[in-house]
């Protein structure tokens, strides 16, 4: 087990023993990256923060199902992933919301960096990161999940399969397809700045 997994495992064990400080250590260790993953899936920072809180409540409730000595990181990602799927389904059901006048609300499409589209800074570093995120946003959900988990969040193929409830073969296939799509997008866009202008996937209600 790598040092990070070991530290998380120790914190989780103490947390299960009733040590509140261990929860805060675990939260500080994992919440930023889980939030990044959720933001990537949901395409909206505020919703991702809500799901993050829900996910950690579920972790708290389910801490009795932790197996001592195990790496809790993929498990927490799994809980967050599932919570996120529930949230995405809920949002799908209530995608169209009307204003008080009965008009469809034309809300600003937030970017998964959490910054509203029109307010996003266009400095080079931000622009290239945002362009990468924009390209990711255009991938189908399952391909994006596979690529984010294995390439951005450092999970192994087996862990990514467990988190998403599928097989390692399916994860490899989805990541492969995501690569092919990204290559196409990058080739078509020519430059990150152009890719950034691609339509964002998520329109917020």
């Amino acid at each position: 087990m790598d040092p990070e997994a070991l530290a998380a495992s120790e914190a989780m064990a103490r947390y299960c023993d009733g040590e509140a400080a261990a929860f805060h250590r675990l939260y500080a260790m994992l919440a930023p990256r889980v939030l990044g993953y959720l933001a990537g899936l949901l395409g909206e920072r505020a919703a991702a923060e809500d799901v993050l809180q829900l996910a950690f409540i579920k972790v708290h409730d389910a801490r009795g199902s932790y197996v001592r000595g195990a790496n809790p990181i993929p498990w927490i990602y799994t809980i967050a992933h599932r919570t996120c799927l529930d949230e995405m389904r809920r949002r799908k059901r209530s995608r169209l919301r009307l204003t008080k006048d009965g008009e469809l609300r034309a809300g600003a499409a937030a970017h998964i960096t959490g910054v509203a589209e029109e307010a996003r800074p266009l400095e080079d570093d931000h622009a290239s990161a945002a362009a990468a995120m924009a390209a990711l946003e255009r991938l189908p959900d399952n391909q994006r999940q596979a690529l984010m988990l294995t390439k951005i969040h450092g999970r192994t193929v087996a862990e990514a399969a467990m988190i998403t409830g599928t097989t390692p073969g399916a994860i490899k296939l989805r990541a492969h397809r995501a690569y092919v799509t990204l290559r196409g997008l990058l080739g078509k866009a020519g430059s990150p700045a152009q890719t950034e202008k691609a339509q964002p996937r998520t329109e917020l209600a």
Partner: protein
Amino acid sequence: MKSEDSPEIDEYLLRSARQVPAPPPSAEILKAVGAIEPVRTRTRFGAFLIVATVGAIWPAYTLIRFPLRRDLGALPAPWVAIGAALWAATLVLSLAAALVPARGEVLPSAGRAARISAIAMGLVLAFTAVWTAFAPGVSLRPEDVGKTLIQSCWGCGKYVLQVAAIFMVLGLVLLRRVLPVGGRGVGLAVGAAGGALGGLALHLLCPIATTGHVLLSHGGAMVLASLAGALIFQGLLGR
């Protein structure tokens, strides 16, 4: 994944990996954590042992209560041994894959569970289809008991499904709120394990030895149980 590595795309992806500062825990979490108490955690083999032990009670009772098949002594010993070993292996491997997480992991791998149980069931079905042992004058055919093939399958199929149902109920109780994803694969393996235990008991109890009967009512019922497990676990654990 290695074959897909592309430095250009990897670099591009890493640009998106800027770590986002997380908000502090919500008031609800802080309240729950403030009132925290020690909890008893799961063990790797706990669920496996409970399901295997409790689930085996009824098949064990039927093996004690009812006489073994009358042709058992007349059948080729290797066939009896290999058949029993295959049914038992399907039971143990499927149940372990469904309920025992790999070392260092919290959750069992649903994909692995589905794969292992599918392979094990395939081997049992292949064995049943290609190697049927029949002791003339001792083993029975459906017509010997005055039934058609389908009618002869009813009792055995029902028995296999009942044994599997006990496994599924136990599995659902033990995995409730434990398995956030992958209910379908795990359910498939739990159903297969229960069906395999039913098949193992029938391997020693049922004197109807025709290929059609064994394939349909023993093996077929096991497959049916695994499909039912996949549907039920996906439906109930996904909530």
